[in-house]
């Protein structure tokens, strides 16, 4: 069905960035053969994720990218931008707003279809897993769209990783603060040195087979209860 298609997407959903970039080299070539450059609209409230996506598209030679941050005026913005492809996070409730927009297509110039082609199950799976959804102008060549969706998937995954690391870093910092507070409480109430306070927390954690931060949290909670 699509013998021309040179890029088979890994079904795992983990598409290395360089793959997507290579795909775009083909794509830019395509456009030199008479197809007009693609215009992409990104609907994204999170400015970091939007920036990561725009960056990915730019690297791949797609410069005509617009970001729509807010739901208000989304319709007007879209009808002005008139994109070939719309990328929107699957958890964005505005997808229902788009659905309405496509129904009343007087306002957007051409009909738009969700996910290129049903035959490509793995691409769809990867996209949904990564939380990407895309709307595409009818009749756009499949591989051009696929490349964009692949890129969005890898960028969404990269953003996810970034978020995860950020959360981990934050919780690491928060744990350290709790341990500090617990030490302070023990030093004050039991007249211990800092080392002794820490050793006590550690020993208790070992005895109770719990995490140090959990013991520290119990100390902090208990102290706050007793304060009143």
């Amino acid at each position, binding site marked *: 069905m699509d013998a021309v298609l040179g890029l088979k997407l890994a079904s795992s959903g983990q598409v290395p960035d360089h793959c997507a970039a290579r795909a775009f080299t083909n794509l830019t070539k395509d456009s030199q053969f008479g197809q007009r450059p693609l215009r992409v609209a990104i609907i994204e409230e999170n400015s970091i994720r939007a920036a990561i996506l725009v960056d990915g598209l730019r690297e791949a030679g797609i410069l005509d990218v617009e970001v729509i941050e807010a739901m208000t005026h989304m*319709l007007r913005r879209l009808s002005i931008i008139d994109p070939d492809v719309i990328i929107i996070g699957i*958890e964005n*409730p505005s997808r229902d707003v788009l659905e*309405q927009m496509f129904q009343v297509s007087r306002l957007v110039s051409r009909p738009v279809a969700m996910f290129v082609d049903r035959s490509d199950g793995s691409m769809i799976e990867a996209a*949904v897993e990564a939380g990407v959804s895309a*709307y595409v102008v009818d009749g756009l060549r499949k591989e051009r769209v696929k490349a964009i969706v692949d890129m969005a998937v890898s960028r969404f995954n990269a953003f996810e990783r970034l978020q995860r690391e950020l959360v981990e870093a934050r919780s690491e910092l928060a744990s350290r603060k709790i341990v500090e507070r617990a030490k302070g409480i023990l030093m004050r109430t039991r007249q211990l040195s800092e080392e002794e306070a820490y050793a006590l927390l550690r020993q208790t954690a070992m005895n109770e087979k719990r995490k140090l931060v959990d013991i520290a949290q119990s100390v902090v909670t208990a102290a706050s209860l007793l304060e009143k």
Partner: protein
Amino acid sequence: MWGIEDVSGDPASRTGSVDDTPSTRSGRRAPERLVRVGFIPLVDMAVLVAAAEQGFAEREGIRLQLMKDVSWSNIRDRLAFRQFDVAHMLSPMPVASQLHLGSNPYSCFTPFALGRGGNAITLSLDLYREMQALAGLDGSEGALANALALKQVVERRRVAGRKPLVFAMTYPFSSHNYEFRFWLAAAGINPDTDVTMTVVPPPLTVDAMTTRAIDGFCVNAPWNMIAVEKGIGRMVATKADIWPSAPEKVLGVSLEWADENPETLSRLVVALDAAARWCDAPENHAALADMMSDQAYLGVPSDLIRRLFSGRLTVDPDGRVRHVENYLRFYGQAANFPWISQALWIYSQMVRWGQVAHSEANLAQAKAAYRPDLYRDILAGSGTSVPLVDSRVEGLEEPFIDGRSFSPDDIPAYVEGFPIRTAANAAVDE
């Protein structure tokens, strides 16, 4: 951020043994069949929550995994991409899917309606006060009188050259869309030309009204009452005023999943039937409200949900309370039966508003969306009384707000009988 990850704590695992859980069969097998159900947090998902939490699914050997989502588009797509097995759906969604409407027209059907009611139309308090001043409303008026008063305001705004009012519903193929339009048109307001109809996701409706982005909305509970209690909205009509028999949400099932799992589907329907019966009993409302107030579901106070079950609605920030008989109905009056005539009423409204052109082929597709035959096969001989026919004239016992009844035998005549409608295909092309 809601997503699949957000389905923290599988609700089924929290099912404790509760005293009024119906006695389970002795020697039942362990819960084994996992059924993933997508839902949007709304009060009308009560039957699903009860099935998962109150042991009804478990009794049928099903582990129901309720998965929260944020949009009807997602519900549709995740069902299509097999992330859900079945879903909490707007009653028009299976009809739209069979007619290949929408951006991912993946065919699904419903063998079971999840109940009636819950929708209401709320206008901004400013707009309602304007209606009061202009039409002399004292607050006790019914839904049609309110719509006629709105018509006066719409006319005055037009004459004064003010921009049209903006009204929101939640999805193009929703009971809200058709009910809002039905109510407006019953008073002579053309929803396509006299006002602007737009979509706002349910959890954002109250905020959108607060920021004056919209002048009114039609959405299911609890959002209407929340808008009133925040002092920004006035409830002017409920679903029961527009068409009391209307199905609201349904159980959407994908054709593939149903083909592969006929036995599980049938057990699921049995479980939902028992859960629906339980939900309708007033003595269970307190427990049901407690379950639903959980963050995994609605995350709103249990007390608010209870008041919604009772049908005692605060309709005006001044404290006016209106008692709506059968505001939410989960079981009685064959509320779970997927009437072909109701699928066809939905279809008639799709034709009326130019979403689809009428043809015999489309009519047949629309009928395929509702499967009373399955409901009947599964529940025949159970304690639930099953209607003997699949189709009936709608609006005889429980009339529509415009007083006309709907005979599914002549849809073109029904549609042409509306003074306000969109000309065929007008919404499709420029």
